[in-house]
């Protein structure tokens, strides 16, 4: 887990360094109003790396070592159940079409959203019932 967390923390560090640099260079009054957007976005890059990166770091110190991080691991050491995967499911399709209908209401008026939200409710219920029987996201 350590390398994964480092990768995300590098992203975060880069966002912080460049963000500060960008902000400092942009202090010139000519540019002041324009750079604020860029500084905010680079700050967001910093946070985007920091949140999952620090979580992985926190978790990597608490979890038991994984066979995929062990350079000497044999295939047998990872054998067994990896997880429960849904074999087939109609609900992603229903959810996708409901999202499409909801978004199309931005073009054609709110009537498509009525169908869209109805389908979305059906899909959410369907996914939850399916997950109760077992299945990853």
């Amino acid at each position, binding site marked *: 887990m350590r390398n994964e967390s480092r990768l995300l923390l590098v992203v975060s560090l880069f966002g912080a360094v460049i963000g500060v640099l960008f902000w400092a260079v942009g202090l010139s009054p000519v540019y002041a109003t324009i750079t604020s957007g860029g500084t905010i976005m680079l700050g967001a890059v910093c946070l985007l790396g920091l949140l999952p990166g620090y979580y992985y770091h926190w978790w990597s110190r608490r979890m038991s070592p994984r066979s*995929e991080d062990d350079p000497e691991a044999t*295939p047998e050491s990872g054998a067994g159940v990896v997880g429960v995967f849904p074999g087939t499911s109609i609900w992603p399709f229903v959810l996708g079409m409901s999202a499409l209908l909801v978004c199309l209401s931005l073009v054609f008026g709110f009537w498509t959203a009525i169908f869209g939200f109805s389908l979305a409710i059906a899909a959410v219920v369907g996914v939850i019932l399916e997950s109760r029987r077992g299945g990853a996201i």
Partner: protein
Amino acid sequence: MTLLAERPGVVQEPGGPDHGHGPTGILRWLTSTDHKVIGKSYLITSIVFFLFAGVMAVLMRTQLASPDSTIVSQHTYNELFTMHGSLMLYLFAGPFAFGGLANYMVPLQVGAPDMAFPRLNALSYWLYLGGGLTMIGGFLTVGGAADFGWVAYAPLSNAVNSPGAGPDMWIVSLILTGFSAIFTGVNICATVFYLRAPGMTMFRVPIFTWNMVVTGILILIAFPVLTAAMVMLWCDRHLGTHIYTVSGGGVPVLWQNLFWFFGHPEVYILALPYFGMVTEILPVFSRKPVFGYRGMVFATITIGALSTSVWAHHMFTTGVVLLPFFSLMSYMIAVPTGIKFFNWIGTMWRGSLKFDTPMLFAVGFLVVFLFGGVTGVFLASPPIDFATHDTYFVVAHFHEVLFGSAVFAGFAGLSYWYPKMFGRMLRESLGKASFWFMFVGFWVTFLPQYLLGLHGMPRRIAEYSASTGWTTLNRVSTAGAYILFLAVAIMVVNFYVSWRRPIHASGNPWDGHTLEWATTSPPPPHNFFRLPPVRSERPLWDFNHPEHTTRAHEAEHEGGTPSRRGTRATGGGADGAR
């Protein structure tokens, strides 16, 4: 129906867990959560969009073949270049790589039974398909499709200048495909972080997968900004907000800042996966390990990081950006890209090269992308950019970069992995013919465009007068576009031939290095009957050629008695490979 995914031990009998009585026919396609089915759907859908956008390009080149041409109207021309760019960038180049090939190959390369979130994966595809059809649906509306360019600059894209349902459908389509890309990015990162095979540490993951992880992170950085910008644009158009209009106190250039903060990482979201494909193909057809594995990973991460801080080099002529900052940052991207080129050449150096179709396309990519990249370095210089901004010089530059990666490297990856995905080979003769037509057509199309740009021809004009003297160069460029069309047509014939008269492919037709070749073609549900032990970044090669393993080679080097054959097969590049 849910299935327990089990990771096999050393040997597992074919047959595996309980499969084969799911739904059939169209219901199988609608309900599948198998990353292989979704990956293929992505591939086929994106190629259809590619062909559609290619026809638009040919129409535009036909229009420009002669001065004062009236084959299409000015308004139609605007729609054509907008939809050509939008389809190629949002619906072909990205989804082809991170929706199609990555979806199919990343779980296989890390030895996983499926993507980490199979149902989320299916949802991404349906959002992508729905969004793509919405974008094309713009042509069916009264006012026609969006016609403000793929960048939709404010205030051209507001309700006064671009009224009608077509532009709204374009906005909605980008919101949908944006979410689709975000979900795929999350999925790929989670798969690589959590579902790797035993022994596959992060620094043994194939470069293609590494590049997809970095691409996934870039997607998470860039696409939310695009989606937010689109929602604000919609609010400007319909709710009377003034975010991008001067009259209400807004800032039009904010649109450019937001768009390019998405747009420049997007360029690398489009390029990095294709760099990864080339990095997979060159070692296999040179029969050597990739030269400088860690250097490649470092270069990928550096390119990804730097790409978030160069967005305003698209906005030099607005006069409100930090020219020195963005110019310097843009120059710096050339360094990791140069490392990649060095390592690609190092991989081929003294290898036993085999020029099959994938390798031809990969080498073609190196040449083409080098030219596009070098002209990109020119454009990072503000004085040169001021002179060439919005001319055909820029058009030629980004077509060389994007056509080089998405089509040359994309076809390389497609013909390399086609046997794995469809269990049958493509015809070598047709593939090579397609390559040579494409390579020639490419230069004939885009070299004249550089000259046209230097002669001052602006982008996005439907007509020009004969007195400008641009006619000859435009004719040559149009002829090149027809050659490119022919090359793509040969590729399509190749698919058709392999569909009607299949030559069955073995599990490992290219003597590949990575885990996707360790299973059957096409792979069974949940992918693997057995996994070889992972001891280097090319586990399958080590398994199939125990006398030439990466480790054995290192031991030889330390012992100072390399066997001749071993040196030849694994090459001198192994030093840098660890």
